[in-house]
């Protein structure tokens, strides 16, 4: 991966000295996205810039990927994520093929991931793949001759979810640093939380408040990652009400039933951290509430009307970052995007 980055680094335009955070999408062209650790912080920020640009230039970008074909290979069902990837390509002017869940048996007939990707590379210009096994996206990216986007590999990595979260934080707060961010719920198994923390630690200057029952605390290796960041801090608590007034962002997570051995433990822990209108009274007026969705009952329906609720906005941001990513990996420039940089300057 660094080899690819080096290969393209000579092409970075000279305006980069003026815009040190800007990296040409050409540095992402032809690459796969397996984990966000594969790409640089300037590249991440550039993708978020592109997502914001797309949002305000829907008509201008509507033909960016004319004639392109996206293949969505979903070895396990995740209708929301698949719809987001597919809508993103359709809104860029491209088309979509693929399979999901039940159709899988007839399509793959027990074929290896590598063979499937070598086949699909002949049909599609780019692939989004979800698979229940950890590391499946890396296998796919090594076999494919077109870019592969990891749409989730067995709870291992889900980079577009993290991009979505970052885009939502930035849209709401105007920045990704100098924030107090509360993570609430299942912090042991919640991989979206781990990935978001890791990426925010690369950016720096975030105070994390980790809110969970003792049974679902943040794993040690994530705490070590925060410790390793010279500008990030954390504190752990089991009481949401006690800390909610300190937060710029409250990231709620789902407590998954399949993590528990018995129903009683699940019900007790699930109901411990429910966000309702009463708890929200103590929160700042400009706090933003995020949730990767779908929710079970950890946010009551009454909260949806509160202007601090940002979780349905996240869905839109998810589509926008996928539009940014698909066009960037394909090397299809967004019409007018360069102009916006000059406006920024």
């Amino acid at each position: 991966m660094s080899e690819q980055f080096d290969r393209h680094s000579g092409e970075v335009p000279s305006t980069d000295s003026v815009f040190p955070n800007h990296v040409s999408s050409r540095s992402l062209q032809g690459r796969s996205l397996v984990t966000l650790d594969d790409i640089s912080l300037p590249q991440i920020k550039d993708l978020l810039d592109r997502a914001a640009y797309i949002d305000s230039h829907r008509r201008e970008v509507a033909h960016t990927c004319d004639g392109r074909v996206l293949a969505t290979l979903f070895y396990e069902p995740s209708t929301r994520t698949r719809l987001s990837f597919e809508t993103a390509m359709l809104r860029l002017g491209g088309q979509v093929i693929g399979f999901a869940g039940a159709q899988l048996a007839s399509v793959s007939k027990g074929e290896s991931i590598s063979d499937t990707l070598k086949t699909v590379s002949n049909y599609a210009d780019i692939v989004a793949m979800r698979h229940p096994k950890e590391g499946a996206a890396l296998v796919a990216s090594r076999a494919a001759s077109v870019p592969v986007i990891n749409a989730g590999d067995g709870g291992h990595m889900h980079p577009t979810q993290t991009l979505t979260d970052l885009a939502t934080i930035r849209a709401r707060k105007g920045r990704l640093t100098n924030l107090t961010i509360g993570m609430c719920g299942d912090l042991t198994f919640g991989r979206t939380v781990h990935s978001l923390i890791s990426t925010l630690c690369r950016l720096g200057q975030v105070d994390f408040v980790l809110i969970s029952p003792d049974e679902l605390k943040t794993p040690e290796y994530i705490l070590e990652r925060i410790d390793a960041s010279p500008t990030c801090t954390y504190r752990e608590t089991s009481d949401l009400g006690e800390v909610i007034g300190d937060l710029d962002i409250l990231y709620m997570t789902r407590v998954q039933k399949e993590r528990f051995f018995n129903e009683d433990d699940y019900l007790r822990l699930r109901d411990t951290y429910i966000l309702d209108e009463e708890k929200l009274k103590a929160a700042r007026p400009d706090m933003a509430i995020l949730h990767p969705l779908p929710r079970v009952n950890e946010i009551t329906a009454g909260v949806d009307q509160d202007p601090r609720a940002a979780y349905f906005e996240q869905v839109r941001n998810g589509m926008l970052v996928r539009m940014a990513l698909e066009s960037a990996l394909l090397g299809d420039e967004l019409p007018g995007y360069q102009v916006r940089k000059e406006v920024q300057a």
Partner: protein
Amino acid sequence: MKVTSIVDGIIIDHVQSGTALKVLHYLHVDPTSTRLALIMNTDSHKYGRKDIIKIEESDDLDLTALGFIAPQATVDMVRQGHIVSKHKPDRPVHLVNVISCVNPRCVTSVERGADQCFHLDDSGVYRCDYCDEKAEL
């Protein structure tokens, strides 16, 4: 120093005591058909106890796995009954098809023909390229 048991070959010294047979396994040395000498659980100044492996005619041996299974070992080259050189095993950044991932959720447990790839992380631990699981013996 005069060497016993072998004339031309290698001595793998300072192997963690009790693990010599495992080391042979990872080096793909078949003890039923190779001329070798094993000394197990002998006294060591450095480690208290250690194993020593002496292998005759070792030129074709790939020692890559040593960096993973016995990084603290010393490899002595023996020519005509004398040690002519000593070196520590390399710690290669990548190990391909040397060890297998033990994580049942790892894609390598289902993907036919997938290479078993491990890399050395910043803290000196070998991890699966696919699922990041720590390498285990």
